[in-house]
């Protein structure tokens, strides 16, 4: 609790002190953009890079072949975010290995990986580490029904993609609501492993989209359709969030970020690129647990808030509270949801209850979730946890280890109401015995006398 209060004040302090020109990102403002050639890239991606600068990032654009580029020095990250816009590069920076990038993500760095039809083996191996498998060399995404009509009339490789996954944490409402959106995409398809809960497809192909070789065939041959990616299983853009809440976006197209397609007619590339870069660089949908506390429901919350009990008795009723905030639009907001659940587990889950959102008057940045919980009638070491993992949002896993004690010998009820008839029965038998004794001892004998003449 004290730690939570400290964290809260620290948050308030940091948000108050940092000037607004700082990055809106929660984790940091240093962006490394790796491109094939710096000068050409500054022209090609000027809109995207300008929007990063405007959002307060400290953008360093470097050539992929620049051998002075490293991600870590002495184990510390040099950058908070990396955008890889150099798909063809066989080696990146100072011979950075796939493990270097994985370490970068493990230590909380975020990545934006853009591919193209000419994707190097190195970046394929990098993507496979995150469950994203790009299609074979030489293939491209083709759609003969939805394509950019003003350009490249023959092979239809600039696809107008519109099938977005409904992930409001990543995509802004106007983009999701737009029926006629067209996100122009020129590049390579990938298959995403749907078994990985950390990975979610964001933009997939429509029914007429397939992955094939644009040079050889206009249409997919019947032989190769088995292996071909098409439709919904064809991933164009996928999002990955690691257990450390680092975020990685895989886009099969560098052209997606280019000025040419952002400024194309009816293009939704601009808002889409903004959404995915904001999400990837921790500018939105960052969920944070400010504090959590539990105490006996009978105890007044104000008096017992200073110390948190480390044990309860079986079947106690406790009050559990957790404060959640979500970051977007440069501010922490209260996080409102109806699916925040509390769990009490001892190997098996004993309780799983939905917590209710209660209005907390003192803060406009925190939503408090509250539950009055009757603990199981079972003693042992329990874990109280709120394990909240939703696609696109930072995951929250709060755990407390709490002992539940059995009743002391003098805490059991002395008399059980269920046993009252038995108490009564035994005392009635004592009374009956005394009555029999009295009848036996003071037995007068007129009865035998009167009965004797009858029997005789």
């Amino acid at each position, binding site marked *: 609790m004290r730690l939570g209060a400290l964290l809260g004040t620290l948050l308030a302090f940091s948000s108050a002190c940092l000037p607004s020109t700082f990055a809106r990102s929660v984790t940091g403002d240093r962006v490394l953009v790796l491109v094939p050639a710096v000068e050409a890239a500054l022209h090609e991606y000027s809109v995207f890079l300008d929007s990063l600068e405007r959002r307060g990032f400290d953008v360093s654009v470097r050539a992929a072949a620049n051998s002075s580029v490293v991600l870590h020095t002495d184990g510390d990250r040099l950058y908070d975010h990396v955008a890889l816009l150099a798909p063809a590069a066989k080696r990146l920076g100072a011979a950075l290995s796939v493990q270097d990038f994985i370490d970068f993500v493990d230590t909380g760095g975020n990545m934006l990986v853009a591919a193209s039809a000419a994707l190097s083996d190195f970046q394929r191996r990098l993507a496979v580490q995150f469950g994203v498998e790009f299609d074979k060399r030489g293939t491209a995404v083709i759609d003969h029904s939805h394509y950019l009509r003003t350009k490249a009339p023959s092979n239809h490789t600039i696809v107008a993609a519109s099938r977005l996954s409904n992930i409001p944490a990543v995509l802004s409402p106007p983009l999701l609501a737009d029926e006629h959106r067209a996100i122009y995409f020129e590049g390579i398809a990938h298959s995403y492993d749907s078994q990985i809960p950390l990975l979610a497809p964001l933009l997939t192909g429509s029914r007429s989209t397939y992955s094939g070789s644009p040079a050889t065939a206009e249409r997919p041959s019947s032989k190769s359709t088995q292996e071909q990616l098409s439709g919904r299983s064809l991933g164009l853009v996928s999002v990955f969030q690691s257990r450390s809440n680092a975020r990685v976006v895989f886009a099969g197209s560098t052209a997606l970020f280019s000025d040419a397609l952002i400024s194309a007619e009816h293009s939704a590339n601009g808002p889409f690129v903004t959404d995915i870069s904001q999400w990837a660089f921790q500018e939105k949908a960052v969920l944070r647990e400010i504090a959590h506390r539990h105490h006996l429901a009978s105890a007044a919350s104000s008096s017992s808030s200073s110390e948190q009990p480390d044990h309860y008795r079986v079947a106690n009723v406790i009050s559990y509270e957790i404060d959640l905030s979500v970051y977007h639009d440069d501010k922490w907001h209260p996080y409102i949801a109806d699916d925040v659940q509390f769990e009490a587990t001892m190997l098996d889950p004993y309780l799983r209850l939905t917590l209710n959102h209660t209005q907390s008057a003192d803060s406009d940045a925190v939503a408090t979730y509250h539950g009055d919980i009757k603990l199981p009638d079972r003693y042992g070491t329990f874990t109280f946890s709120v394990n909240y993992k939703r696609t696109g949002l930072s995951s929250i896993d709060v755990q407390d280890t709490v002992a539940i004690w059995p009743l002391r010998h003098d805490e059991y009820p002395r008399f*059980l109401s*269920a046993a009252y008839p*038995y108490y009564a*029965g*035994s005392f*009635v038998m004592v009374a*009956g015995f005394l009555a*029999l*004794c009295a009848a036996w001892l003071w*037995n007068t004998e007129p009865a035998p006398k009167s009965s004797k003449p009858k029997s005789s």
Partner: protein
Amino acid sequence: MPASAHVLAKLARDYAATTPQRLKVIDTYMAFCVAVGLIQFLYCALVGTFPYNAFLAGFGSAVACFVFAANLRIKTNPSNSHQFGTSSEGAFAEFVLCHIVLHFVVSNFLG
């Protein structure tokens, strides 16, 4: 039917006429024991065996009282006097002693 009714009527009449009053008192007491035991058993069947020790104590108390009363009745029945002798006071003393021990145990076991 009339024959069995006749038998029953004769049995009742003979019982009232020939049984000593002390044995009638014991018989009443035994009927009382059966009633108390039956009530507790029905309650247990209805509600469940949760305070099982209390049930055992209450029910056992009734059963044991019934058994002690039956023994007292056998020993003090004049028609059994050739087997046990004529001292009904001794039998009654044993009966009282057994009851004291019984109720001590029951009250401990009641919980």
